[in-house]
């Protein structure tokens, strides 16, 4: 069955078109909404076609990690909710959920999106922890790119709650924004046979040979990568995949409209 679907989709790709009529390098319509849930300090909803994810940022005052006493803490978590797909099950995070969370986390960490030094309240004692949770609402392909975009958008939307020095008052948000520096934009390029394409549907995700996620900063630096899939890639292919990712990343960056500007 999978082989038949694969042959069928390959034939379409050979014509330069996807099953749904898109060209190989074209995303479905993208939208980014900010401030979509009230109790988070920042939130976003990203749609890519019928794929929909929500991201929320919660802030808390914690002790720093012993090896970074002057830096705030960052955590990225992805919940592949069983509500969003017949393929997801309740229970501990799957490999897929952990991979998405870690790749999104790496992009944000390595692009130095947050100036973590500015999240320090008292060296070695108290720092702000920034906790990003990404929940899938409808899983219709390309969750990773959607999750990465949602995470950055939610950070842009985030405002600090009032902090008295001993406790955090979540009921009162201040006007103070997160110390943001640079945005990472993740684009995953898929390979099937000799064809490269982006923003897969669920069917395309079930039959690809290899994929490469590339997170780029807006000045074109690569800040994180992850290869997936059972097939191997040539150096030449990696080069072409990175080029395509860079092209698409600059397009996706245009959807980040939050008032807390990022480089």
């Amino acid at each position, binding site marked *: 069955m999978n082989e038949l679907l694969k042959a069928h989709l390959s034939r379409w790709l050979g014509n330069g078109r996807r099953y749904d009529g898109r060209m190989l390098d074209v995303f479905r319509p993208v939208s980014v909404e900010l401030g979509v849930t009230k109790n988070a300090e920042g939130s976003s909803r990203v749609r890519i076609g019928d794929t929909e994810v929500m991201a929320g940022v919660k802030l808390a005052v914690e002790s720093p990690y012993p090896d970074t006493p002057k830096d705030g803490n960052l955590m990225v978590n992805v919940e592949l*909710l069983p509500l969003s797909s017949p393929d997801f099950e309740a229970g501990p995070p799957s490999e897929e959920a952990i991979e998405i969370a870690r790749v999104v986390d790496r992009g944000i960490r390595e692009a130095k999106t947050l100036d973590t030094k500015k999240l320090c309240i008292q060296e070695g004692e108290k720092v702000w922890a920034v906790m990003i949770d990404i929940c899938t609402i409808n899983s219709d392909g390309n969750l990773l790119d959607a999750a990465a975009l949602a995470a950055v958008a939610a950070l842009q939307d985030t405002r600090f709650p009032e902090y008295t020095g001993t406790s955090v008052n979540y009921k009162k948000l201040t006007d103070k924004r997160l110390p943001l520096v640079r945005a990472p934009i993740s684009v995953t390029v898929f390979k099937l046979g000799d064809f490269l394409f982006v923003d897969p549907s669920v069917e395309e995700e079930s039959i690809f040979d290899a994929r490469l996620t590339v997170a780029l900063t807006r000045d074109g630096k690569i800040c994180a990568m992850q290869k997936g899939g059972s097939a191997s890639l040539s150096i030449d292919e990696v080069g072409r995949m990175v080029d395509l990712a860079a092209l698409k990343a600059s397009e996706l960056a245009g959807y980040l409209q939050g008032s807390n500007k990022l480089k």
Partner: protein
Amino acid sequence: MGYDKRVDGRRPDETRPIVAKAGIIKRADGSAMFRIGDTVAYAAVYGPRDLFPKFLQDPQRGILRCRYNMMPFSGAGDRVKPGGSRRSKEISMVTETALLPILNLEDFPNAVVDVFVELPQTDAGTRCAGICAAAIALADAGLSMKDLVAAVSVGKVDKMVVVDLNYAEESYENGDVADVPVAFIPRTGQLSLLQMDGLIDKESLKKALELGRQACSRIYDVQKAALKERFASAALVNGNNGAHGPVNGKGDSE
């Protein structure tokens, strides 16, 4: 003094504003959003589908499985740790028993119907909002049902018997508070969810339950309207409701 005027100016028998929408999650067989005030619930239904492991199957009837979950960023205050808690387990269980009486599970032996309730934003009354959303989602999935279920919390804040307590009322400190989540099967007037915590006298409880029944009948109208709107718009796009579609339940390749 005392609590004689509600914090948000509502009448004692008035719920917060309600919005309901069916068919919000395309991959699901049925889905709905139910919003009451600042509490928002999403529900998705998958099934009837095969149940594994096999020993859980019942050859006489299908099984209903509900999962209630708060998104990590949904609460006022600290992040809610994912992975479930004693509280979410119990609420999942009472959600199940609130919905069971309306389903004809004997229609699909050995199978399971999964109901997933997720809360992106909370301000008290989450289990009731979840049940309201789940009932719409079950109907949206096209399951044969005896009726919908409508749910709301009722109770008493100080001296006032009220419906649909918000968080400020639930945590009122200058007098007794009783919180009584109820679910009604509107056509029969029977209760399928009843819990209570706090302090209340017998007369007030009876009055609260009657107010709850009336509020649920208004919620029932909103639920039915959401379903009607869903199927009116589904008819426009070629009867395309995503349910029972081909592979992946995807009926949306326009």
